[in-house]
């Protein structure tokens, strides 16, 4: 299949491991990615927290750019995904707003392409059986809890993510790779990412709570699909509580034995390599 690809700002910087592993996994699974032409930032929390029209217009500019390719757009970053789905929701349900935003952006919004996150694409278009079949290195000994965070799931009317209070797609994918996935009650809790820099003390407490819960569940790592959760959980927990955090695509890449799979582990702030070496996975 072919989709257009909106990496967003994080995937070119703090989330580069996500971009690299997403591209490798997509290539291996036959998902062709065509980057959206001349994309710009989605506006993230800072736009919607301070200026509604700006937040919709910044996302609309990218949706309009993506529509030129007439392909569904894959949005790996949970924050960009959330902003695009929110903009789509408002533009489709509020004619006056749509006219106003089209005036601001200077082009028409058609609303004809689907905004999709890669969990959904890989789970539904590729499927669990295909992932099992492609696994050459079983992730034995890896005990992840899956962490979906907020932005892929909420609000449910906007994000249209299955089982938003107890999602399972990441869990099933990790099981398909041979990981011993642990169940826990914090799959969809917030890590505090939006205030990580401006209100750090609160966020450290929130991350510590998550790490403690993951440890109590018997996990030795956390798997996520959000670069903001990743950055936050990788950097903010207190030192004794940290666990290796992985993008789900890094683990797909590792299990499928893709070239360069172990490269992305080197740039994590909390080094996951000792755990992976101990388990003889790298």
């Amino acid at each position: 299949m072919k989709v257009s690809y909106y990496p967003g700002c994080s995937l070119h910087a703090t989330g580069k491991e996500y971009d690299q592993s997403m591209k490798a996994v997509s290539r291996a699974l036959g998902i062709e990615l065509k980057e959206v032409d001349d994309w710009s930032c989605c506006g993230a929390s800072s736009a919607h927290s301070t200026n509604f029209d700006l937040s919709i217009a910044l996302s609309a500019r990218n949706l309009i750019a993506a529509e030129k390719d007439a392909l569904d757009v894959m949005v790996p970053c949970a924050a960009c995904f959330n902003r695009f789905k929110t903009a789509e929701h408002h533009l489709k349900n509020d004619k006056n707003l749509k006219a106003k935003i089209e005036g601001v952006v200077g082009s028409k919004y058609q609303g004809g392409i689907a905004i999709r996150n890669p969990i959904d694409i890989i789970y539904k278009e590729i499927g669990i059986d295909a992932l099992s079949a492609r696994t050459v290195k079983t992730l034995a000994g890896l005990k992840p809890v899956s962490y979906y965070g907020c932005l892929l799931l909420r609000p449910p009317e906007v994000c249209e993510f299955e089982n938003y209070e107890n999602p399972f797609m990441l869990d099933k994918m990790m099981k398909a790779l041979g990981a011993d996935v642990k169940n826990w009650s914090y799959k969809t809790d917030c890590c505090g990412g939006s205030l990580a820099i401006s209100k750090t003390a609160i966020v450290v407490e929130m991350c510590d709570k998550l790490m403690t819960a993951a440890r109590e569940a018997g996990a030795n790592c956390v798997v996520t699909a959000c670069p903001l959760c990743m950055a936050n959980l990788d950097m903010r927990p207190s030192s004794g509580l940290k666990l290796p955090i992985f993008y789900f695509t890094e683990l797909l890449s590792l299990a499928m034995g893709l070239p360069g799979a172990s490269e992305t582990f080197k740039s994590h702030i909390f080094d996951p390599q000792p755990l992976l070496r101990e388990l003889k996975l790298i």
Partner: protein
Amino acid sequence: METFLEEVNRKINGVPLQNCYHCRKCTAGCPAASYMEFNPNKVIKMIQNGQRDRVLNSSTIWVCLSCETCITRCPNKVDIARMMDVLRQMAIESGIGAREKNILKFHEAFLAGIKRGGRINEPMMMVQYKLKSGDFFSDALLGIDMFAKGKLALLSPRTKDMQSIKDIFEKTKHS
């Protein structure tokens, strides 16, 4: 003369706040409630009571993480997360500003980054935030580690059509 409640409802442009029957499910699920001056349910009550200044001056509206758990679980579909956005925007537009100054300064530095390059260059954005907030030393070691691991590129590709970005900011400016 529009009341505070009417003004907030008009700006939310969805389910009116009167539909809240104060079950406090929003507050029970809110991960930031314990850090807030007034919990989310209390904010709704205060709006219903017309306490404009106390609400717009509160730290609550800035501490809200926009995690959207409240709207997800509200049995009456009151969009509390959107309400918090509306209140923040009202605090800015009315000149009250932000009780949590650094949170607004972060948002301003972030948006200035988009205005400058179309995309966020994280090191530039952080420098701008630190200049605005005066908070120079936190995360310095982390920044060095990130830089060493190639997570912070000093030069990153920008959006080419910067005129379109400038137009968006110009045409959506707070009046």
